């Protein structure tokens, strides 16, 4: 095997060295890893049955009179309760076996009508299994004739359920029940149905996580379903909801920016404004914005106005103080230099302060936009619930958590990519900052790097050197 000395050296570099820059290769790898790790943990917990899985997801409905709660297939019960549950059904079946075996199809049992009704429920216990094996369609779930036929086929061994399989115990119960059922009538006839109690199927299940942690594929499937669903009356499509939420966030944020930035800049520039505005603002920002929600509804009435107002109230006070501080951080010597060059007060503000703080102001607004997103969730609960939060609220109440996660992730992605894009744009807007010529965005780098990383042939030493660093060097070396 050929050894590349530079590659060898790179490989021997320590991973743990205080404040020492990692190689670009490793940095990109770790950036990708930071996203891959949570996904891997989530997948592991979801797909490895020996990790966690504290519940059992039922595959057969259990609908018995002496079980207080009614469980249907897909419900989850705790792993501790499950054996108890199975045992209860077995105990219930025991006294019934004799009556079933000695069935006289001609005789009409006492209160036969009630027993028949109960027996039809037992008949339908197989529906989830039949549906899962695609022997009946969803519309046939109440088609007792088809279900009846399937009972016979399973009892005869003509059909063997594979996913999920039926336990030996349940196959035996099906056989016993079918023996009695077929004695009365080989095909379904609602008037001629067994009138002695049938044996109940013993609950079957598979290890499962609680419903609040759906598996990744479930989230993806629900996500695709929710996001491709067309809008209905009273129920906007997901993209309409996204648009609505974005309008509220940006509406409130832009208003806060329009009002707050001029005030902040004035406070940072002129102590007069600072002393008048900042003490009260400092007090007011501690008043939690959500406490104003009822007030805002009273002022702005329903619809979006109070929501936008809440984002505005939540953002503006922080914004004024942050902008004032940023303005104050502008190098005082720059102002002094401008004065010695003949700038008057108005020119100091427009020609020095404002251009001087722009890059930092831009960064502040980026951070505050993140704040605005956190206010969104509360804002959308104000008055008439709306947007993404309304969806999360409703689905969460129905315990459709697999539909909740895609929305939560989407909000995160919108925020994250907005920030990444704004950060990339800042290089274009402010070419004079040293960051602009410095390192590229690590995430962008990682994404660009990904394909190369999989190319084994990519050799380590031809990575591009920091071009701007070289340029700088050549400038300084000039006499």
């Amino acid at each position, binding site marked *: 095997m050929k050894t590349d000395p530079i590659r060898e050296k790179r490989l021997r570099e320590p991973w743990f060295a205080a404040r020492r820059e990692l190689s670009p290769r490793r940095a990109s790898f770790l950036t990708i890893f930071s996203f891959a790790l949570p996904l891997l943990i989530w997948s592991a917990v979801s797909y490895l049955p020996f990790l966690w899985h504290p519940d059992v997801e039922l595959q057969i409905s259990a609908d018995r009179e002496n079980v207080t709660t009614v469980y249907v297939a897909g419900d989850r019960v705790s792993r501790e309760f499950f054996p108890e549950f199975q045992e209860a059904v077995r105990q219930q079946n025991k006294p019934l076996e004799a009556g079933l075996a000695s069935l006289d199809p001609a005789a009409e049992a006492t209160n036969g009508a009630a027993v028949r009704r109960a027996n039809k429920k037992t008949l339908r216990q197989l529906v989830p299994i039949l549906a899962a094996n695609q022997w009946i369609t969803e519309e046939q779930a109440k088609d007792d004739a088809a279900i009846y036929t399937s009972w016979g086929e399973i009892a005869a061994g003509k059909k063997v359920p594979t996913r999920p399989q039926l336990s030996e115990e349940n196959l035996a119960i099906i056989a016993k029940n079918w023996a009695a059922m077929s004695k009365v009538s080989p095909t379904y006839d609602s008037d001629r149905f067994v009138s002695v109690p049938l044996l109940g199927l013993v609950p079957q299940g598979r290890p499962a996580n609680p419903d609040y942690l759906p598996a990744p594929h479930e989230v993806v499937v629900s996500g695709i379903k929710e996001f491709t669903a067309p809008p209905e009356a009273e129920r906007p499509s997901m993209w309409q909801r996204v648009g609505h939420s974005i309008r509220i966030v940006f509406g409130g944020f832009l208003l806060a920016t329009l009002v707050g930035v001029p005030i902040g800049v004035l406070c940072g520039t002129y102590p007069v404004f600072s002393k008048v505005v900042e003490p009260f603002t400092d007090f007011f920002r501690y008043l939690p914005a959500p406490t104003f929600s009822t007030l805002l509804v009273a002022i702005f009435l329903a619809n979006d106005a109070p929501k936008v107002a809440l984002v505005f109230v939540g953002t503006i006070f922080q914004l004024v103080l942050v902008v004032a501080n940023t303005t104050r951080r502008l190098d005082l*010597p720059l102002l002094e230099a401008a*004065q010695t060059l*003949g700038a008057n007060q108005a020119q100091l503000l427009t020609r020095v302060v404002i*251009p001087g703080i722009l890059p930092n102001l831009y960064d502040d607004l980026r951070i505050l936009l993140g704040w605005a997103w956190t206010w969104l969730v509360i804002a959308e609960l104000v008055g008439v619930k709306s947007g993404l939060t309304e969806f999360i609220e409703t689905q969460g109440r129905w315990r459709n958590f697999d539909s909740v996660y895609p929305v939560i992730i989407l909000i995160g992605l919108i925020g994250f990519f907005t920030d990444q894009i704004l950060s990339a744009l800042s290089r274009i807007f402010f*070419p004079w900052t040293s960051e602009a*010529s410095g390192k590229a965005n690590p995430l962008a780098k990682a994404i660009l790097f990904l394909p190369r990383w999989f190319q084994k042939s990519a050799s380590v030493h031809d990575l591009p050197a920091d071009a701007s660093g070289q340029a700088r060097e050549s400038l300084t070396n000039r006499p």
Partner: protein
Amino acid sequence: MNALVDPLSYREQSPDVRARFQALKERPVVLSVENLYKTFPTPGGPVTALKDLSFQVFRREFMCVIGPSGCGKSTLIRILAGLEDASDGQVLLDGKPVSGPGPDRGMVFQSYTLFPWLTVKQNVMFGPRMAGQGAAAEPEARQWIDLVGLSRFENSYPHQLSGGMKQRVAIARALANRPRILLMDEPFGALDAQTRSQMQSYLLQIWKNLDITILFITHDLDEAAFLADRILVLKANPGEVNEIIEVPVPRPRTPAQFVSPEFIATKYRIDHLIHPEAAHEMDSIPFPRMTVAGDDVE
């Protein structure tokens, strides 16, 4: 510094040196400082930073101000620039009292004060722009940039320049306003030694070719003796005029003069003023001997 050169020999000015300074003092006064006081209020009572300071700077003179740390050099130049107010006394520029900062006094700061959002050319045009000149100022800005040898970088941003280049732009920017006097507050203090001596030569060339008066603050004896016509030596606590040294080193100055007797005598004199014999005594730190006897290097 030892007694090889008589420390006072420079005072016996040769006739041509005496004639030179006579001629200098006959020129019009550009800057006149009269009985200047500056006191700062502190929790422990007012502290006097500058006390009864009076001196004059003549047209096209290069004057250096030097003094021990804390003598109020920077306070003085900030008052001259109008960035601070004097407690008492007055500053006259061409005979007119000065109040507040203005473009008639250009200033170069020790810290880099180029506007980072403007290119080199835009920085140089800043002063004329403030005065209402628009694009008309551009050809002249180019000349100033040429003068400091940065025409290749006129469209660069300050963060792309080295420290020495930044200060050259700062000089061009101050000169573009055609000030009566250029105030320089340790402008080369942050530069490395080589760049600094290069910058000193640059500055002397610029000064030689322009009708400009310079007041230059420094704490570097070599720098003061190399650049100045006269050196204003300040006392510390409070800052008062100690002596105004007339530097006998002939012009044009070259680094070769660093070993000339006049240069060494000047430096010795400054050192003696700001660092009197008594202070030398205090310099010897009691330190336990950590070497073997007989292993002395001196």
